[in-house]
């Protein structure tokens, strides 16, 4: 299983060279740290999927002594591992450029990443190869675009929710969000495993 996670590094050696300038670009442009954390976390796991949507890759992985459950587990655990590494690298870069960020930025960035991963990973198993990367990229852009109007809409019209959030303590809020995201992630893991086990290659 560890081998499957390590595989991503071997596979993406070259892309990793782009990774650093990519983050630096975000930092120099003065993008909010939350977004930088989110984008840097997305980089490796979603690149892996770009490889794995090919039928040949699945034939190879499934012919090697791995179970299908392990292959999916490596993706979900790998996403977390690479998220942590990416956040580490990004933090160092931010630090080097003397830009301030808070633990909250890290928490929100990684939370959003896990949510995004949890929502999109099963889609990779449903959509036909070739389309999925486009679908994900577009949905990511749309999500980013509509997130702000949506939040202000909720703030204005659904006062019950905002009141609840405003009244809850910061700790309760973070814990609640963390638990909710974790639940989404675990459910997504389960769904993807079930779909993947029924697939034919």
């Amino acid at each position, binding site marked *: 299983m560890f081998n499957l996670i390590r595989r991503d590094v*071997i596979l993406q050696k070259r892309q990793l060279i782009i990774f650093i300038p990519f983050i630096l670009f975000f930092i120099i442009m003065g993008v909010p740290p939350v977004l930088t954390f989110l984008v840097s976390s997305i980089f490796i796991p979603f690149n892996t999927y770009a490889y794995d949507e090919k039928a040949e890759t699945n034939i190879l992985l499934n012919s090697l*002594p791995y179970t299908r459950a392990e292959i999916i587990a490596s993706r979900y655990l790998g996403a977390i591992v690479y998220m942590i590494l990416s956040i580490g690298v990004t933090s160092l870069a931010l630090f080097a450029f003397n830009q301030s960020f808070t633990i909250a930025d890290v928490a929100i960035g990684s939370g959003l990443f896990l949510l995004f991963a949890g929502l999109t990973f099963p889609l990779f198993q449903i959509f036909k190869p070739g389309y999925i990367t486009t679908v994900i990229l577009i949905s990511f852009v749309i999500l980013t675009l509509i997130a702000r109007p949506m939040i202000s809409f909720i703030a204005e019209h659904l006062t019950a929710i905002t009141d609840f959030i405003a009244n809850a303590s910061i700790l309760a809020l973070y814990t609640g969000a963390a638990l909710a995201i974790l639940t989404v992630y675990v459910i997504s893991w389960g769904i993807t495993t079930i779909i993947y086990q029924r697939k*034919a290659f």
Partner: protein
Amino acid sequence: MENVVELKNVTKKFKDFSVKPIDLQVKQGFITGFIGENGAGKSTTIKMMMNLLRPDAGEIKVFGLDYRTHEKAIKQRIGFVYDGNVFFEGLNLKDIKRIVAPAYQRWDDALFYQYVEKFQLPLNKAMKTFSKGMQMKASLAVALSHHAELIIMDEPTAGLDPIFRRELLGLLQELMIDGDRTIFFSTHITTDLDRIADYIAFMQGGNLVFNQSVHDVAENYALVKGGLDLLDRDTEQAFVHVQRASTGFEALTDNIQAVKDIFGDTVLMERASLEDIMYYSKGGVSHV
């Protein structure tokens, strides 16, 4: 004699094609050639053996084990070679080895480099720059480097030039010196099998027509030639398929004794090649 692979009543249905209930045994320590025209169900059967596809019904056992409970243990002992390149095409052989090797408990680095040298494979060039023959050699090097007991190959000789095809067949024979090893490979180039196969499994239209030793195939099947006047509805029963021409008929039989009893010396009998068997079986309504 032990069976390495056992398929019992296995079926698989697709929208426009189905594998009928088949029973297939692959014997340990031998080379079994798997023949049939394109679309006969060979690849489907091989994929089911590798658990890439699940059968709709029936039972598949490899090394006497079930995929449901022993998937990893089974695959540890299998080496696989597929028709196309399944390795990441942007990677070089060294990186592919880095990805594949840790998956196997019995991976043998020294052996791998021995094959790399033998096949003259470049370690630092991307797979996509390899010729078809080199890709096949690379797949083989990977498949052979973890002391697999069973080697499953789907059309390994397709698209290879005749010289390398012979080299490959020679290599397979060399591998068999180690007596426990089993090789199962599909091909539609039947002359490959005349050289090395011990058993022949023949599939057609989703049916397994036979799975016999080369010796039995030669004993059971024959090409029969004779005058048209010998044929009638009864005598035709002895043939799998009859082809008529103005000069006489040529037919394939799977029952040499019956033909001898019916026709005696009036017909000419020749050894049927695998290609003859495939060709005539396709044209005829087989009556078993």
